[in-house]
């Protein structure tokens, strides 16, 4: 028989563009994914700072004035919230991505997450110490 059934592999159910507004978990997913935009902004902002430092003391003072402008400050506070969301969701997902076994038994997922949060704390202290060290 040659009656072809509809090829189900080619069928894509229509999805509304506002699908992510219909559930809290969808919204959180999209906010988490959108955090990448603020990671990119942070990179641009830090590169502007480094570029300003390389331009001399005047450049650095201009950068400090720039970072104090209301719109830059507000943008950075929003960006910080998103970057924190990124870090927290990333470390919480780590146990799902990294499955460690020791002596034939799986290491507790909580231990894997805790190790990541510990590493975050250490990295934060070290960066703070390097940046603020010159007082």
């Amino acid at each position: 028989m040659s009656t072809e059934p509809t090829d189900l592999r080619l069928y894509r159910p229509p999805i509304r563009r506002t699908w992510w507004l219909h559930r809290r978990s969808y919204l959180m997913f999209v906010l988490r994914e959108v955090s990448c935009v603020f990671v990119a902004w942070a990179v641009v902002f830090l590169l502007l700072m480094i570029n300003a430092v390389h331009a001399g003391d005047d450049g650095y003072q201009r950068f400090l004035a720039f970072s104090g402008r209301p719109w830059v400050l507000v943008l950075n506070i929003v960006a910080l919230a998103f970057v924190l969301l990124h870090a927290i969701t990333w470390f919480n997902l780590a146990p799902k991505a990294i499955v460690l076994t020791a002596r034939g038994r799986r290491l507790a997922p909580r231990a894997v997450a805790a190790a990541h949060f510990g590493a975050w704390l250490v990295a934060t202290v070290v960066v703070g110490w390097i940046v603020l060290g010159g007082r």
Partner: protein
Amino acid sequence: MARRSSSEAIAWLLFSAGGMASALLIPVLLLLFGVLFPLGWLAPPAYAHLLSVLSNPFLRILLLLLFALSLAHWAHRFRHVLNDLLQLDRLRTAIGVLCYGAAAAGSIWAAVVLFQ
């Protein structure tokens, strides 16, 4: 279904490495330079100190890695956000090229800024 390719695997690896590097280091850097120094809650470091920190070759390479991987992380995630939210199926290739291209250009800019 999208074709799975080895370039997708590389993109995912970079996404993953960038996600980790940025999660560890970006929050504290943004907190200091973007919020605490501008608000005056902490005095910003002296120019000479920052200059000496940034002239350390080891730290320069570390920062370049952080910036390049973070941008690769952005490119991969942003590409999928655009595909999921906008559903512009015909523009998928163009969106991919633009995202990874921007990340590559940003990484070159980072190298120029760090090693100038």
